[in-house]
């Protein structure tokens, strides 16, 4: 009986979805789309306890570093949470276009 319960639990865990899409946002997409830049930053937590959302600012800094003298346009931002067993990963994934003016 115990064996069956464990097997059933493992099956249920493997079938359940583990990614939650929190938000998606997009700005105006430019006509010039040759230089695509991407970045992501994340924060891990145990049973959802976090003390800071500073990982968002990390993503912005990474994006700025990839386009130091240009204009970052067509910014696509995705905020998602992936759940593992008792541990969660919050993530901001950003893609954009860097255009020199």
């Amino acid at each position, binding site marked *: 009986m115990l064996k069956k319960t464990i097997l059933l639990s493992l099956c249920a865990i493997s079938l359940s979805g583990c990614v939650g899409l929190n938000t998606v946002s997009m700005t105006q997409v430019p006509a010039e789309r040759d230089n695509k830049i991407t970045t992501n930053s994340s924060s891990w937590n145990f049973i959802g306890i976090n*003390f*800071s959302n500073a990982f968002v600012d990390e993503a912005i800094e990474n994006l700025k570093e990839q386009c130091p*003298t240009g204009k970052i346009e067509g910014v696509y931002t995705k905020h998602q949470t992936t759940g593992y067993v008792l541990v969660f990963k919050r993530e901001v994934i950003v893609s*954009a276009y860097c255009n020199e*003016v």
Partner: protein
Amino acid sequence: MPIKLKGILGLSFLLIGGCSQLHHVHIGEIDQSQGTLTPFTLKVNELGFDAAKAAQIGADVAKSASTSEDLELVAFILAISNFGPKTGNPVYNDAYADQMLAEVIKVCPSKKMTGLTSVREATNVGPVSGEVVRINGYCIN
């Protein structure tokens, strides 16, 4: 589970539960071609309160079993009466973020800004929370 142990467990969760939640993030376009950038941050914070959670904590720490059961029922009624889509805890002021636009307009002396990032987040301590709207951006010098 004995009521005392439940109470201690409940209070422990309340104390370690100082928790930062990220609800929404939107990153805007960043123009680094027009000059140096000076970062700025504007933030508004409003008190949020989860009455159902407060009643549930009361039920966990109540000394008598009958009080605990009564409070659990109150928590259940509060939970189902507030059931539905929401972001964070309910607040008592629906206009707390309205002054944000006026503040953003005032922040840059050159009136030119870029890289506006809007963040909706919250800091939770038990049933109480700070419901925050934060705008980060850069003034173009």
